[in-house]
């Protein structure tokens, strides 16, 4: 007379906790998730194809729109890839400023992650505090390059401008006040029993599985694999700075939280060292007026806040790329989602999406 039935539930694309337009088709047995289909493509803009019809200068604003929460990294990865292809050397001051802005961007991106992740799980206060500190960073970026989200802050061969007067002092001020603010998030979350209950043991992703799925970034490091592009294949001037790669042990959402919190501290360390060692000089290298890389192909990666961000360019000696491909960390990390939520409760799906820290602009491109 009575029987149970599996049920299909659609989550998204207009769901506040999917951080954009992600659609999940969950197959539920009661409250337990037995199968997940990840349906993407709602934000697909065809940027890769579009790049084939734009010259190398014009592509940079388009890279801003991929991972719009951490657009500095998209800019950085793109310009470094073209520089690698053409063999352009960038002045040292420009490299240092790039490192400073990029690491500040990592903090800003992790603040968005922390705020929204906590908000999804039900801790609303943290969200406001995180965005308050992010505001300071966005003001710094605005003073540096004129925009708050889509920066277009670098150019092939260096930077369009030097930093404005007084900017480094403002960065120093931020470096000084931020540890105290981070302590506040720590107090609110790290030992909070609700937070522990919602994150410990949730969304386990073991090291072997993470590597098989191609997961990178904090999600991989929380599984105990100490892999960071900044250390493994140092780009820019990262080999000159001292910093640690935090890793986790339990492979769960809570460890990923701890890893990202520690990453913010390490980023601050890098910013401090880069500020102290900031050399004087030019910020723009010698670049031909028309960017025409030689025939060839190049792949270059940077360590974005979400993981390994790769750019692949095939050049046929024209001023436009023949093929452009982005290896976006959000897209690759998202593949692990069905595996991570299998057997958990519906409410945990929200926590797992939050901990993967995806940006749909990066997933769909």
């Amino acid at each position: 007379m009575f029987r149970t039935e599996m049920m299909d539930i659609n989550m998204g694309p207009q769901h506040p906790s999917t951080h954009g337009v992600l659609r999940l088709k969950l197959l539920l047995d009661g409250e337990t998730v037995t199968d997940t289909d990840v349906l993407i493509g709602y934000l697909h803009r065809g940027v890769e194809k579009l790049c084939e019809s734009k010259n190398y200068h014009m592509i940079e604003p388009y890279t801003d729109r991929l991972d719009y929460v951490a657009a500095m990294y998209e800019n950085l990865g793109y310009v470094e890839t073209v520089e690698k292809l053409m063999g352009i050397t960038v002045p040292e001051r420009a490299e240092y400023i790039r490192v400073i802005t990029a690491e500040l961007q990592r903090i800003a991106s992790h603040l968005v992650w922390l705020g929204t992740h906590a908000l999804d799980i039900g801790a609303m206060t943290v969200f406001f505090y995180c965005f308050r500190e992010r505001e300071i960073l966005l003001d710094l970026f605005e003073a540096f390059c004129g925009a708050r989200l889509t920066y277009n802050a670098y150019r092939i061969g260096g930077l369009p401008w030097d930093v404005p007067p007084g900017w480094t002092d403002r960065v120093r001020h931020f470096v000084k006040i931020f540890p105290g603010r981070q302590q506040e998030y720590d107090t609110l979350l790290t030992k909070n029993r609700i937070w522990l209950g919602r994150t410990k043991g949730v969304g386990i992703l073991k090291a072997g599985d993470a590597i098989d799925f191609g997961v990178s970034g904090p999600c991989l490091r929380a599984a105990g694999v100490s892999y960071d592009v900044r250390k493994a294949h140092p780009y820019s001037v990262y080999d000159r700075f001292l910093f640690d790669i935090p890793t986790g042990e339990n492979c769960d959402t809570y460890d990923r939280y701890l890893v990202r919190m520690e990453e913010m501290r390490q980023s601050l360390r890098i910013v401090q060292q880069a500020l102290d060692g900031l050399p004087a000089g030019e910020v723009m290298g010698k670049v031909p007026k028309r960017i025409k890389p030689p025939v060839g192909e190049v792949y270059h990666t940077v360590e974005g806040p979400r993981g390994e961000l790769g750019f692949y360019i095939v050049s046929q000696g024209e001023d436009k790329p023949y093929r452009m491909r982005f290896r976006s960390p959000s897209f690759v990390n998202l593949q692990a989602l069905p595996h991570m939520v299998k057997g958990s409760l519906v409410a945990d799906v929200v926590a797992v999406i939050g901990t993967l820290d995806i940006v749909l602009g990066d997933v769909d491109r």
Partner: protein
Amino acid sequence: MKIQAFLQKVLLLELWQGMWVTLKNQFRPHITVEYPKETVEFPPRFRGVPRLRKDPQTGEELCVSCLLCEAICPTECISIVSEKRPDGKGKQLISFTINYERCCFCGLCVDPCPTKPITAIYMSHDYEFAGFDRDSYVTAREELVDGKPVKIYTS
């Protein structure tokens, strides 16, 4: 150690610590502004809508119709029509239109402009340009030079 853990559990210590943080933050100054009654101040490099400008000294238009900005614009939103000057020296503008609907405020058009140090095209600080129809975004040369009259909102 066990007693400490027990006390922590019973007395909800970590929750009270969190409450203390929120209480402290009640007394921090506000950082939000009540737009549109108040507006924030922009840094000099702020990128609003691109506009054209005249030479501040002579009052003449600076643009020499080199079409470089049109060529570099990634969204192809600038369109320039120009003709040879009657005296044969250089070109003069007939029309210069920017379609704000397509502009992505990247600021690339300013980079190659040859009229240094004051570039003819520049990123202004105007950001309030909402319109009711699409045509209102196609902005012609006169408006680009003088700027649209900005409506001041008061309560």
